[in-house]
């Protein structure tokens, strides 16, 4: 029975993930109707709607009449009102959950809630954060209001565990589902609600066992909006555009962020990087267990060395991929360095019989 629930929950997650990460134009009438209804629930009159092409445009073209500084993510006071509204509704839904619902909820959280939470945080939060130029905390309420994870969790409980919502709970479910399934980011203020269109391109890759995804595009922006504004990402790490579009050894040398530097080197390829950067070869040795291949140790700056190794198995085109692994600077011998990567001494690693 668990396996069945798990399969159903996974299918429901995929539905919501598709809606959350959709690149179709926002359904403007649906968004405006549902957001207006949420304003009424909060005791406010429906706002004017200000539609923009991207989160950056949302903050650059905020209409007059705003009482606060739009950049600061915490200074959108209505956000906390809406977060409370959603929490209050959650509490009534969960008050109606019985033991069998909670049992299945464990599976639903693992299959639906957390994968959605992580996928949205890695794919959609970067554009929002970048538009706000705001690194520090202050995002809590945005996930409480803007993520579909909770809605999807209750939807999965309805469909797999027979959770029944009363008429009012159902109405609120439909409102939140309509907003979060029809657009990504919206900024509510008392008289005006700014809403961004969805991106026109969103490139992702699978990032775990439970169906979560992360942004990645090896040759262009991972997230791109109609106004050209974009966010680049390398295997889930948000990077400056040069890392993807034009990685050079000079830029890599100037980069202070170690993670961005690693992404840029991987984008360029370790082999090419070592050659173009003219890294000094410290030592080389045959790779035990990988006949015909060599391990090479190079000096990189800032207390790091890199071990260049060759894959034990062939790629589809018949070549063996070379890859670099950064190792501590005190290692002088490539065998010792290879051993270190597995927590072994050089003598131990030297006994390697086979690498695939």
């Amino acid at each position, binding site marked *: 029975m668990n396996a069945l629930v798990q399969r159903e929950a996974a299918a429901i997650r995929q539905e919501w993930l598709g809606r959350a990460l959709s690149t179709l134009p926002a359904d403007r009438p649906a968004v405006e109707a549902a957001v207006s209804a949420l304003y009424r629930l909060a005791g406010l009159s429906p706002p004017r709607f200000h539609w923009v092409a991207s989160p950056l445009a949302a903050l650059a073209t905020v209409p007059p009449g705003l009482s606060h500084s739009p950049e600061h993510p915490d200074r959108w006071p209505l956000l906390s009102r809406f977060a409370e509204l959603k929490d209050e509704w959650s509490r009534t839904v969960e008050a109606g959950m019985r033991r069998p619902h909670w049992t299945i909820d464990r599976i639903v959280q693992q299959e639906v809630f957390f994968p959605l939470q992580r996928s949205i945080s890695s794919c959609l939060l970067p554009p929002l954060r970048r538009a706000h130029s705001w690194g520090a905390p202050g995002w809590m309420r945005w996930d409480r209001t803007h993520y579909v994870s909770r809605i999807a969790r209750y939807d999965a409980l309805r469909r797999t565990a027979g959770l029944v919502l009363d008429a009012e709970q159902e109405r609120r479910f439909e409102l939140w589902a309509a907003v979060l399934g029809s657009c990504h980011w919206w900024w509510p203020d008392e008289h005006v609600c700014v809403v961004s269109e969805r991106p026109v391109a969103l490139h992702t*890759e*699978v*990032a*775990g*066992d439970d169906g979560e995804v*992360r942004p*990645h595009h090896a040759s262009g922006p991972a997230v791109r909006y109609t106004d050209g504004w974009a966010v680049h990402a390398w*295997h*889930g790490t948000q990077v400056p555009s040069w890392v993807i579009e034009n990685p050079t050894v000079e830029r890599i040398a100037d980069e202070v962020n*170690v*993670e961005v530097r*690693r992404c840029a080197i991987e984008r360029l390829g370790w082999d090419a990087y070592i050659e173009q950067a003219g890294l000094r070869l410290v030592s080389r040795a045959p790779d035990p*267990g990988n006949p015909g291949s060599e391990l090479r140790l190079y000096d990189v700056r800032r207390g*790091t060395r890199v071990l260049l190794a060759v*894959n*034990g*198995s*062939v*790629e*589809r085109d*018949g070549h063996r991929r070379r*890859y670099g*692994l*950064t*190792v*501590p600077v005190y290692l002088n011998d490539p065998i010792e360095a290879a051993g270190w*990567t*597995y*927590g*072994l001494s050089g003598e*131990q*690693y030297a*006994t*390697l*019989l*086979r*690498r*695939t």
Partner: protein
Amino acid sequence: MTVTLASLSRRTGLAVLDHLEQSVRIPVVDGLQAQGDLIVIPLPLVATSVTLIPEDRWEPVPAEGVELLRGAAGGNPHTLVADPGTCRWTTHVADSQGLAIGVFTASVPVYLLHPEHGGSGCAPGTYVVRRQREHEGTRARLVAD
């Protein structure tokens, strides 16, 4: 019986990429062997740093195998495959290097299977499976290929 990638793949239902050599016998060895970002180490070799947590929590390796580790992107798993009743496995290990993901003990040859890296055969014995790490800034990060 000769165990090849093709026969392992048939037996477990796990796919391997078709450009890998399918019909050659997978070598079975009793020492250290690496499969991408994973390494299999005979327990006695690292007995000073890896200890089994006393509580007996060994699990039998079922016919479909045990997924030891899954790559970060694309999700390619390293799977431990054994004939039923011949191999047990536990994750209750302490490793001073912090890299061990488990220990298995086999009474007949068992295999590690990966869609891109192919197969590794392990002779009867007890082995530690460790992940690979990298040095980043002042910390270490685990490699996920």
